[in-house]
């Protein structure tokens, strides 16, 4: 192998809190999802609070993770699948993520990311250039409300999404649908307009809130600041229709 084809980052270590093979809902085909630990956000509805702190698991090297990823290569090839980096917030471990994405790129393995969009663009730009597919959240268009429920404002996020779109990447915008937080018509319309004015995307995926993660808060001894209810099916459909009425695709993975 030529020196240029070797990934110099293969020994970098990072935190992975879960690996899921045969993942079917985080991109095309049969995928392996790698959940990287650590997140700068504190979304009140988060169903993976164990991912907030990255130090709760042992470190693994890029090479070790890639070894697991490669296990299912034959399935990715047959299905047009690949790897999805999720979290936590995967960019929270920039060097580790870079190592992983680069290794996959060199192996010809399709890569996707699930990100909050909250990261330093300069230090992550090259990673997004290497990625094939991006899932990114727009949680709320109002920065104040955004900050109230997630701990951070939305300015950086919206800027980054626009920049990712400018790179020409395939993008799916995800809206975690939380009753009483972001499900009002005004916010949905604002989100749609932002998309139409600034982005070139495949479509929007609605992820209705579910309370399957609630028990984890108890286990981890965390307070649940807010209580949320699961949105009704009819309301979900109404919102989907509303987004569609802006000529934006709705996608279900």
């Amino acid at each position, binding site marked *: 192998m030529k020196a240029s084809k070797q990934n110099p980052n293969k020994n970098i270590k990072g935190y992975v809190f879960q690996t899921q*093979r*045969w*993942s*079917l809902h985080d991109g095309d085909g*049969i995928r392996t999802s790698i959940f990287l630990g650590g997140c700068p956000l504190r979304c009140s509805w988060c169903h993976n609070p164990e991912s907030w702190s990255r130090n709760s698991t042992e470190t693994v090297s890029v090479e070790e993770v890639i070894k697991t990823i490669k296990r299912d290569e034959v399935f990715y090839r047959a*299905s*047009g699948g690949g790897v999805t980096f999720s979290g936590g917030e995967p960019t929270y471990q920039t060097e580790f993520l870079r190592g992983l994405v680069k290794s996959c790129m060199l192996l010809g393995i399709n890569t996707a990311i699930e990100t909050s969009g909250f990261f330093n663009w300069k230090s992550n730009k090259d990673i997004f250039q290497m990625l094939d597919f991006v899932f990114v959240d727009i949680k709320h268009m109002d920065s104040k409300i955004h900050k109230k429920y997630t701990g951070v404002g939305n300015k950086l996020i919206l800027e980054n999404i626009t920049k990712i779109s400018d790179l020409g990447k395939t993008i799916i915008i995800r809206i975690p649908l939380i009753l009483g937080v972001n499900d009002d018509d005004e916010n949905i319309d604002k989100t749609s307009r932002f998309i139409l004015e600034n982005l070139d995307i495949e479509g929007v995926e609605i992820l209705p809130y579910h309370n399957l993660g609630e028990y984890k808060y108890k286990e981890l001894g965390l307070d649940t600041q807010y209580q949320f209810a699961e949105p009704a099916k009819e309301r979900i459909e109404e919102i989907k229709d509303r987004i569609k009425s802006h000529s934006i695709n709705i996608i*279900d993975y």
Partner: protein
Amino acid sequence: MSTERIAKLKKNYIDIKPSICVERAIAFTKSHKSTEGEAMILRRAKAFKEVCKQIPVTIFEDELIVGTPGIYKRSGFVCPEFSWQWVEKEMDDFGKRSQDPYLIGKEQKEILTKDIFPYWRGKSLEEAFLSRIPEKTKKIAVDTGIVDNDSKWRSAVGEITPDYQDIIFKKGFGGVRKEAEEKLANLEPITGENIDKINFYKSMVESCEGIIILSKRYSEEARKMADREKDNKRKEELLKIAEVCNNIPENPPLTFYEAIQTVWFVQLGSVLSENSLALNLGRFDQYMYPFYEKDLINNCITEEVAQELIEALWLKLSEWVWAISKNTAQYFAGYNSFQNLTVGGRKRDGGDGTNPISYMALKATQNIKTHQPGLSVRIHSDCPQEFLLAVCDLIREGTGFPAVHNDRIGSQMLLAVGLSPEDARDWSNCGCVVPHFRKIGEWTSAVNINLAAALEYALNNGKSRITGEQMGLLQAEGQNFDSIEDVKGAVYKQLANLIKHAVVSTVVAQQIHTEMVPRPFLSTLVGGCMEKGVDLSRGGALYNVGPVLTGIGVADVANSLIAIKTLVFDEKKVTIDELNKALDRNWEGYGDLRKAALESPKYGNDIDEVDYLAVEISDFYNREIKKYKDYFGSFFNSAFMGISNYIPTGSVIGATPDGRYAKSPLTEGVSPHAGTDLTSPTAVMRSAAKINHDIHTGGTLLNIKLSPELLQTDKSLVNLASLIRAYFELGAFHVQFNVISTETLREAQLNPEEYKDLLVRVAGYSTQFVNLSREVQDAIIERTTYESI
């Protein structure tokens, strides 16, 4: 959707309980009484003909495809020439037994007791086998669950694929008879060989006459019924039946209808000749399509009519019942008769052979969901994606059908046993998952060998942990277990001994078969017998492939060895003696040790350390088997396939080092042990694909259970197709899917009446869930269900 007629016939079928009919036994026995002293092959052919003459001819309401082996819609029957003792012993409990009960009338029991059994006393295959099998082998191979071949001496062999392409559809039975007569005209009884040949060809003539007589009787009956019929539409149908049954199977079929009725007469004749399992239907789409195409051109068929006829055949195949002993029923649960039917795959020239009939066969199973035929598909790289998606769509129905096979590996297996490249491309499935061909003679499921027994005897000085009896070899003097290699060595020694006994019991059975139960009718169907002038039971087929010895519990042995390696040698948590104590006590008082055992790596999670132990064991098994040749000089073959054999084999084995409790089930085929495959279906497939499938020429089986939620969208169906393609790219042979929720199954246990048509994949086949015993039901529920998180 099926037609109204088929829906009605199906409802009728699921509502009827199987009953034992004695008509075949009466006619067969009567004939035998009158042929004492003649050559056995002729006696059997004459008895078959007598059955064809005497058996009541019944055309049931609304039927289009006609012919029944008994007087009941769902008849099972007794073949006393193979075995009658189990019937005598068990018939009072036929209705009560948990697995596959039958109804039997008082009158029928009386006939059997008075007229049938007394004649066969001392004359049955079973009695001959038991008197000839060496004592040492008998101890381990008769009703033990360790080495089991009772289906080869308590019942007939079956396991054939009729040659429609070169024999039946080309010549008809009239043509076959003529050919035999011509051969006879040129033979003088001047050598022993010639005498054998003369008897063989005479028996061919008798057999052909028998099946022709039977069809003409149906023709006559249909005409009589037509005369009486008031309804004009039905009258026309009956007249059509009369016309069809008059022409075929004496002559080659001219239309699709005639071809499909021929197929059923061939099945019926085979069933009446020996009541056996695995009377396969071969490559149905390949031999049926030319008739369909021709009828379409001639405007004498529509797709709807053809579909209805196919579904009518499916019902016929499901109605008759392979009556078997309580013991055999544990191994082959679910009234299953293993009539395998194959569609898809490459043609003899290597091109793709998928045609409209391939899709219609899938649709038939989708529509009527009967447990027969055992539908198999062959998938290859150039197989149309549309066909594979239709296969996935049927998988989604949750019937467990079809069994999905790797076209290329099937061919490779048959090349390995000596077929020509063209014939090897033309394979179809036999029984469960055995690649087969219409000119092959082979015992495709000769013996089940309990691999966990080898492990138990290795650790326990040759003794059964449950009975304490000396079953295996004594430990060699001074033999210590200082490393995992020592343990493996001891396991292999015990395994080699079991294989030797399996070979002995097979060869003894084969020899008796050549003497006592020649197969003249089946010899008319299998390529090679006519040319050689030799009966199928004596090696008459063009290819004689060696008997298949099926290993059960490869995952259990691999998991146990890795647990021993980890706990005893690597971590030194326990000594071998202490572990043996824990196993003797079925883990009682050893909770922590059992927990550690359960936590050690398990086959099925793509962990090389344990997976390659499974590979090593299966490779050893194959090498050891290949040391032996059968009665005809063909090498034995290995297989890891399931029937429901993992339950009875488990019930005789004590606790195992992998954490398994005593008497609980082992593992089917190359599947992971139930509930231990926790990673992903892709991991299961990678583990299973590490096994060298191509050398196990008797077939390998992987069962994966998926919950239906995973298959709801079109996209998920495409992913399932990719999963299959990738598995085959890894070199594996077969996979089948159970797509049923655990809730549904529990619900079915509570309310069996409401779930009478719920089909599940037991192992190598599908059957009605409610017809399975509670144990089997529980075992199926226990299999891991993958849920997407």
